[in-house]
């Protein structure tokens, strides 16, 4: 097995430590490391592929209603696809979940089509009132994910962990 990036292993150990055993995702290139690590090292974590990010939030909400602690993983571009489910289901019903966002459109981006949403992600999260934390270094991922998830599930509010390209391409 190839060595997985430190940040990806940290994301896995962080969400696991916070009690999440259910990950709903729409694929993303950096997140493929997380998915592979979860698949190899965390046999009791269930991975569920969604066709679109908004759907992933609906599935995660149902998992929570059923007593689970869900994680949603997506690329930042997918935040736009998710806003109606987030603002009219996740937030008003106070459904907690860990949301892990792999950033596009930030420093290091090469694709102009990714930049407007990437630039807007934090402003959008602030505007709708979801707390978010950006992982500063690869080593910081495990703690950041664990703490965001602990607060999310403890206080019944969604929490977002942003993974910048500077970290995910390290």
């Amino acid at each position, binding site marked *: 097995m190839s060595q997985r990036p430190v940040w990806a292993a940290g994301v896995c150990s962080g969400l696991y430590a916070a009690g999440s055993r*259910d990950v*709903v995702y729409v694929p993303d290139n950096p997140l493929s490391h997380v998915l592979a690590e979860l698949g190899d090292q965390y046999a009791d974590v*269930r991975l*569920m*592929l*969604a*066709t*679109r990010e*908004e*759907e*992933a*939030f*609906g*599935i*995660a*909400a*149902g*998992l*929570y*209603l*059923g*007593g*689970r602690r*869900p994680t949603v993983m997506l690329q930042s571009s997918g935040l736009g696809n998710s806003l*109606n*489910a987030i*603002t*009219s*289901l996740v937030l*008003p*019903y*106070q*459904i907690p979940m860990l949301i892990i966002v792999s950033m596009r459109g930030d420093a290091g981006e090469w694709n102009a089509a990714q930049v407007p949403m990437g630039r807007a992600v934090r402003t959008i999260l602030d505007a709708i009132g979801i707390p978010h934390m950006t992982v500063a270094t690869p080593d910081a991922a495990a703690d950041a994910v664990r703490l965001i998830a602990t607060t999310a599930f*403890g*206080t*019944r509010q969604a929490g977002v962990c942003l993974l910048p390209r500077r970290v995910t391409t390290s």
Partner: protein
Amino acid sequence: MTRLEATRVVVEAAGDAPIVASLGHPAYDLFEAGDRPQNFYTWGSMGVASSIGLGLALARPDAQVFVIDGDGSLLMNLGSLATIGLLQPANLVLVVMDNEAYATTGGQPTPTAHGADLAAAARAMQVDAVTVGTDEELRRSLARAGGRGFQPSGPLVLVVKVTEATPRHWPPLDCVFIKQRFMTAIGNREAAIAPQPVHRPHR
């Protein structure tokens, strides 16, 4: 058969099993057909009722999970059928109240009014599906997926051709109340008090 009449049949078949309802008229009719704590009424997130039901079915394989969706809502999230087909939750019954219109917003026709076939779409995504038009057919289709002592037999999509009758009642508006009542009723009660640090008195 009106949607309300069809909804009454679903509530009767569900017993004490959870029912997730799509926003607007499907949720209003569920409330009128029989308000019960095991009803999860959505007030927004058009399209994702089937996804909520999917997540719930995966989390609670011991429960038969019913979803009452609309044709317009399911069309907004058709990918959900592919995901249900992929994950094959044995305990999920997705009832699509197909009135061929966006009734909640004034009756604009949906593509199902022009031949779009949601049961065929479900089957194409590897989900067993039938279209029914009478309460007897609906009863018979639901019988194999009843609430109590159900025999999980794979996900099922029931497209119910219904007529529109404007609902007269609304479910509770408080979303957190709906959630907490629902979770308590299905055995996943949210703790009333967050875990507190243990207080250690000075010695």
